[in-house]
């Protein structure tokens, strides 16, 4: 009798409530080896095909283990705070300087400060998605956070900062030449409209192409805007409509966020 057979018999004998003769036990176990069923009738590939689509969404337990909340809103807020660190100091500084220089320029040529919004928003959103298509991006999307939460969290950081910049610009102009606080609404409505358009364009066509499309539209209109005193979007839409349209574009971008990865690959 081979040592492995005796070892196996020993191991099973230890698990029995009443001992049994080792040779008897080994002989029975040898006989049990004769009962080996054939392979399953369904090949593994066919079974896997049947199971596809039955896998669940990330579990609440896993969210807890990773220190995240299962509530989409709470997760997005937590994730948004984490995203702030992705924006390097150069971005915070560059957007502030660009806003201040832009304010001086628009005041000098007599144009509206709202003119600054489209390039600031488009560049910032493109910057926030700068690692799309890289291995780091793959890692981010494999975390228990949905693609829409990635897009939403980064967009919220950009929009939050743009709002702060708008408030700073409004305050400066208010103290210099009595700029009406209501004009801040022009800034915000324009910001929402162009952010929505940029984000939708990025999700559908990839971050670089999406930003380029928005900027191309802005440049085409910008020539006329230089000599205008009205906010850029007001040529076409009133503030409320612009804000609503921007919000709709943002919602559309979030709904289409799962296809963002595909757009990135197409663009790459």
């Amino acid at each position, binding site marked *: 009798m081979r040592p492995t057979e005796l070892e196996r018999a020993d191991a099973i004998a230890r698990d*029995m409530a009443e001992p049994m003769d080792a040779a008897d036990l080994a002989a029975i176990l040898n006989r049990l080896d004769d009962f080996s069923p054939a392979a399953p009738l369904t090949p593994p590939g066919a*079974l896997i095909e049947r199971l596809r689509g039955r896998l669940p969404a990330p579990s609440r337990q896993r969210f807890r283990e990773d220190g995240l909340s299962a509530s989409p809103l709470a997760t997005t807020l937590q994730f948004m705070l984490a995203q702030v660190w992705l924006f390097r100091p150069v971005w915070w500084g560059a957007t502030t300087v660009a806003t201040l220089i832009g304010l001086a320029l628009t005041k000098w040529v007599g144009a509206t400060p709202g003119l600054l919004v489209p390039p600031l928003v488009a560049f910032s959103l493109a910057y926030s998605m700068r690692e799309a298509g890289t291995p780091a991006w793959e890692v981010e999307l494999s975390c228990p956070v949905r693609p829409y939460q990635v897009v939403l969290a980064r967009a919220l950081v950009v929009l939050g900062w743009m709002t702060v910049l708008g408030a700073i610009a409004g305050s400066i102009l208010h103290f210099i030449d009595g700029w009406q606080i209501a004009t801040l609404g022009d800034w915000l409505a324009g910001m929402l409209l162009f952010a929505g358009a940029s984000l939708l364009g990025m999700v559908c066509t990839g971050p670089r192409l999406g930003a380029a499309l928005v900027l191309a539209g802005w440049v085409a209109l910008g020539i006329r805007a230089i000599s205008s005193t009205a906010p850029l979007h007001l040529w076409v839409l009133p503030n409320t409509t612009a804000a609503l349209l921007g919000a709709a574009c943002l919602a559309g971008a979030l709904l289409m966020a799962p296809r963002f990865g595909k757009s990135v690959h197409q663009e790459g």
Partner: protein
Amino acid sequence: MIRDEELCRQMQEGNEAALEALVHRHQQAVFAYLYRMTGDAHTADDLTQESFIRLCTRIHSYRYPEPFRPWLYTISANLQKDWRKNAYHRHVLPQEPPDGPSPVDLLDRFASRAEVVDALNQLDDGHRSVLYLRFYHDLTVEQIARVEGIPAGTVKSRLSTALRRLRQYLTAERGVQNATD
């Protein structure tokens, strides 16, 4: 190699590659367990598929790092029990021990495998399941206790009883065989 428990955790995130790995690793063993318990390849195959479907739909209830195999066998064992209960109500109980050896049975018993299968069929489900999980699937007494939902002491007692009865049946079979020779 990634552990089953880690794959299970990845499945909770909807990772299809983890599911594929688990199917490749365990489909054969689950089928073997169910085939031995039901005695019918088609039934065992259906129950194996159902086991993996339940694995997917109930993956949220898996608690990492709980051992994966006992958890999977609990699903299969429960499915097998349900199937047996339904078969009983339909009056199509499979694997009923024969009243006495027929001439055909006697011929079959010349084959060693048939002898073993016959002897195993003399055991009731509870004893067979414990024996299969310990011997063929190498689960520990504690893991079997979890699968079967019984105390560890009962597992040990069932294992002893199963092996003693098996020895008796096989000895008796050999006696019948020698008499017919």
